[in-house]
């Protein structure tokens, strides 16, 4: 029992399933872990499947193969350490698991090894979910789980009587029968918010959001994301759509290619003169793994996440102590009309910084404008006019910029996205001696009339600028609005060119198929949305809200477990009923009728014996109960005619006779 390999070659089936299942669970990681680990895993797996008995390590404890494999594994672990600099992070952990799976399958020769390898495969499936939880992943992983279960099943089918088809059917049945209980557990298992302990540093790399630096293309990537950035609930008044500038990080420093924040984090806020009524609102921010919050221009207060957890800087960024890795909610007050006075020397210097010996052509253009005697305000207007009148295009797919990006954009390609316009505009202002800076954040938002709140998606990501004008202080200028005013007024959706949607050729022929495609897209989006709403983000909050619908507002975990038991027990009893019911012995209706007849006779003391045929039994019964003999013979005759003469037409007659057969017990 302990080692069925290699003397029993038929067990190979389960080994093949195991290899296939493991490979399936490893493959999604191809992009995330070093290629050599995948290759090593595949080599080990194929080696084992190719010659299962050759690599049998049970025979001798210290064979050359064994020592070789051990050294290879140590090298592998060291390799992982050097690649990631650790062996505990998320990616490193997954790499380690894949490596382990490879070495485990190669030494699988005993029962215990087989199970351990199989369980490792199940565990690898979970690791994929740490990266992606889409519907596609779920379907793929269901197949993987099926194959892993199949390997367990074939392993336990000692005599290998089952074909792959038959055992797949059993495995699928097992899994399908598990779904009801799984659903109950998923809905009712008490959810705990927050991590139990610190997560590895790279655990949140999948989170999307605005980065703390800007280079061409960094925002247009976000634009393609349909993910929600945050939701806003305005208390009383909603500002106009053109005022919906959600302020994030402020960028000061440029090297000619990318923009970064510089060091303004710990300075107190500059004096803010408010010129309108405050707007009060609540923000529910999705985790974005960055140390800042978003607020409407201009934030008037510290959101008070907790003592020393958040603060407001001199350039009105809302910074936090820790990266935002959980969905959080905070109340804010902002002033759409404002005046920021005061510009210290440090800031002045920073807001005029430019890389040396770059942007030559732009510099000449600004000099020319200066020579024309334009004032600073006029230069701002002139620059915006240049964007709006000189064939500048707003596009998500701008030509690639090399060399001097500002010059190339301004004089050659003239196609760009908000980051192009913002960065070029700030460079122009600084060349003209006007202090300027870039603000990253979101612009606009989608009003949800059902829930009465604004949803700001990642695709609302935006970059705009602020220039210092002596009388007005820091003033917001959005150069993108000059190029594509719709972008600001009606939102990003209207500004996006149609081809972004990416209608495939076969659908783009005529309007009908195009419409069909769009409808399909909407449906798929809706399905995905439901999936995200009900499956992916089903956490403590959702659970509370869901249970509240059934009048279970205040339910503690012990009553939830009680509920689970209440629901699961009937499901299992029903399953047991279905599984353990029915045997053909009295499963056939005709036989069942005959048994009913026998039972009726048994009540008057005439018991049917297993070895007795119907005719003999009838004779015996008729002898004992002469009064019933006619009926007994009648029923027996019909029964024999149906059962042995295939005279099915008489079934109703048998039914009738058995029903009316009521022997008196005396």
């Amino acid at each position, binding site marked *: 029992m302990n080692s069925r390999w290699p003397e029993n070659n038929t067990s190979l089936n389960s080994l093949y399933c195991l290899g296939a299942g493991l490979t399936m669970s490893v493959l999604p990681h191809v992009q995330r872990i070093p290629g050599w680990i995948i290759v090593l895993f595949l080599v080990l797996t194929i080696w084992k499947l190719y010659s299962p008995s050759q690599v049998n390590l049970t025979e001798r404890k210290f064979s050359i193969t064994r020592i070789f494999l051990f050294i290879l594994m140590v090298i592998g672990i060291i390799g992982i350490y050097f690649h990631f600099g650790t062996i505990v992070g998320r990616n490193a952990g997954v790499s380690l698991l894949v490596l382990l799976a490879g070495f485990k399958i190669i030494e699988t020769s005993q029962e215990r090894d087989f199970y351990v390898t199989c369980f490792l495969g199940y565990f690898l499936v979970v690791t994929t979910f740490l990266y992606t939880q889409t519907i596609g992943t779920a379907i793929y992983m269901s197949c993987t789980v099926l194959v892993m279960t199949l390997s367990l099943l074939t392993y336990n089918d000692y*005599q290998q009587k089952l074909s792959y088809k038959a055992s797949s059917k059993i*495995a699928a049945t097992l899994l399908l029968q598990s779904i009801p209980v799984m659903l109950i557990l998923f809905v009712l298992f008490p959810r705990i918010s927050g991590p*139990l302990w610190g997560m590895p540093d790279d655990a949140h790399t999948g989170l999307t959001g605005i980065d703390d630096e800007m280079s061409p293309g960094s925002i247009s990537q976000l634009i393609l994301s349909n993910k929600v950035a945050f939701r806003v609930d305005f208390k009383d008044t909603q500002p106009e759509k053109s005022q919906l500038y959600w302020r994030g990080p402020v960028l000061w420093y440029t090297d000619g290619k990318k923009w970064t924040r510089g060091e303004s984090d710990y300075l107190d806020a500059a004096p803010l003169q408010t010129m309108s009524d405050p707007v009060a609102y609540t923000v529910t921010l999705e985790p974005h793994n960055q140390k800042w919050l978003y607020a409407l221009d201009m934030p008037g207060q510290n959101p008070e996440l907790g003592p020393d957890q958040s603060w407001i800087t001199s350039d009105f960024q809302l910074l936090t102590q820790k990266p935002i890795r959980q969905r959080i909610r905070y109340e804010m007050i902002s002033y759409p009309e404002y005046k920021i006075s005061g510009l210290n020397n440090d800031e002045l210097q920073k807001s005029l910084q430019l890389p040396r010996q770059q942007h030559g052509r732009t510099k000449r253009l600004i000099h020319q404008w200066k020579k024309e005697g334009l004032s600073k305000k006029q230069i701002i207007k002139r620059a915006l006019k240049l964007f709006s009148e000189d064939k500048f295009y707003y596009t998500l797919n701008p030509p690639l910029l090399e060399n001097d990006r500002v010059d190339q954009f301004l004089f050659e390609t003239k196609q760009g996205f908000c980051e192009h316009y913002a960065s070029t505009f700030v460079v122009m202002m600084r060349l003209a001696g006007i202090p300027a800076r870039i603000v990253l954040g979101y612009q606009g938002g989608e009003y949800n009339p059902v829930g009465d709140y604004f949803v700001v998606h990642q695709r609302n990501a935006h970059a705009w600028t602020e220039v210092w004008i002596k009388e007005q202080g820091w003033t917001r200028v959005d150069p993108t609005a000059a190029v594509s005013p719709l972008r600001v007024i009606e939102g990003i959706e209207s500004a996006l060119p149609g081809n972004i949607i990416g209608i495939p050729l076969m659908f783009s022929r005529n309007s009908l198929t195009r419409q069909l495609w769009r409808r399909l897209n909407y449906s798929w989006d809706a399905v995905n949305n439901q999936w995200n709403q009900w499956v992916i983000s089903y956490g403590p909050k959702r659970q509370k809200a869901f249970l509240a619908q059934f009048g279970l507002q205040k339910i503690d975990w012990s009553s939830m477990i009680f509920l689970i038991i209440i629901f699961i027990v009937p499901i299992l009893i029903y399953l047991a009923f279905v599984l353990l019911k029915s045997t053909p012995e009295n499963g056939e209706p005709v036989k069942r009728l005959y048994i009913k007849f026998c039972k009726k006779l048994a009540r008057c003391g005439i018991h049917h014996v297993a070895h007795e045929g119907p005719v003999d039994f009838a004779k015996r019964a008729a002898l004992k109960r002469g009064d019933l003999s006619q009926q007994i013979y009648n029923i027996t005759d019909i029964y024999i005619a149906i059962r042995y003469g295939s005279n099915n037409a008489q079934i109703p007659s048998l039914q009738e006779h058995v029903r009316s057969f009521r022997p008196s017990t005396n």
Partner: protein
Amino acid sequence: MPETIVLEQFPFSASRLAADNKNTRKQRIYIMPTRHGLLFGLMLFAMLIGAINYNNSMAYILTFLLGSLSLVTILHTYRNLAGMVINEAPPLPVFSGELAKFPLILDNRNRHIRFAITFIRSSKKKWRLNQTSTNSHITTCNIDQNQLERIEVPVRSLHRGLLKAGRIKVYTIFPLGLFTAWSTIDVKQACLVYPKPEGQKSLPPVDLTESTGIQGKYSGTDDFTGFRNYQAGDSIKNIAWKVYAQQKGLFVKRFIGSGSDKLHLRWNDVSHLPDIESRLSQLCCWLIEAESQSLQYGLNIPEVSLDTGHGEKHLHLCLASLAKYGLKI
């Protein structure tokens, strides 16, 4: 009529007809996780912790799916045994040290195949249910729907006498090996164990006066005593070819000589051996030898006296009395 054992059925399951029979005995089925089932549980726990820590819905789903799978597996494992009907059949005698094989007739009256049903002689250490001791032999079989299957549970015989199979554990871990459903059946049939044939092969000298009776005086030479009708198996050498040539039929010449002496194996013949068991072994050895040499042989040991005879049945009678010698059975 031997007893029929029905492994426990669910209250609402069928084949109650068999259970109503007087000769049937119901046997309870127990279910426990296997070692690997416990390991599986440990893995599920790790998964759950991971799911909670990362607040990952899909990890929750997979954990719950596999947890639920193990619950469903309990039912399937149970179903694999439940309602199975077991009948005993008498085992064939063996020599001490050989494997005694206890036949069981398994009756699957259900609509599903029973997979990988395993039989093993239950070890005395009941608490080590998942442990299979190395010297126990296991038998595994599938039983198709509505079919009978005959299996033999081997048990190593250690002493002569009657070997009882005792409690035989029937278990299955199908389909996933996470749970084991088992039941123990008390096998009533006993296997007769002959002594181990040991000792010298050469037969003891025949005691002429006693062993051959009246005809003893003719012994020493192959004296012709007469004809008898030919029977299948008679040696060709002894056929009376002359008579056959006269077309009077096929006859066999009969001789009296030492080769066809009646051999009586007596307790005295083995009195030189130190203990009873080795004496019995020697007698056993001689009996087999005598049978193979087609001798007429008898057995005279205390309390048992068997007249001379020949053939398989006679050998069995002799060996059985050796097996039972001195034992109160």
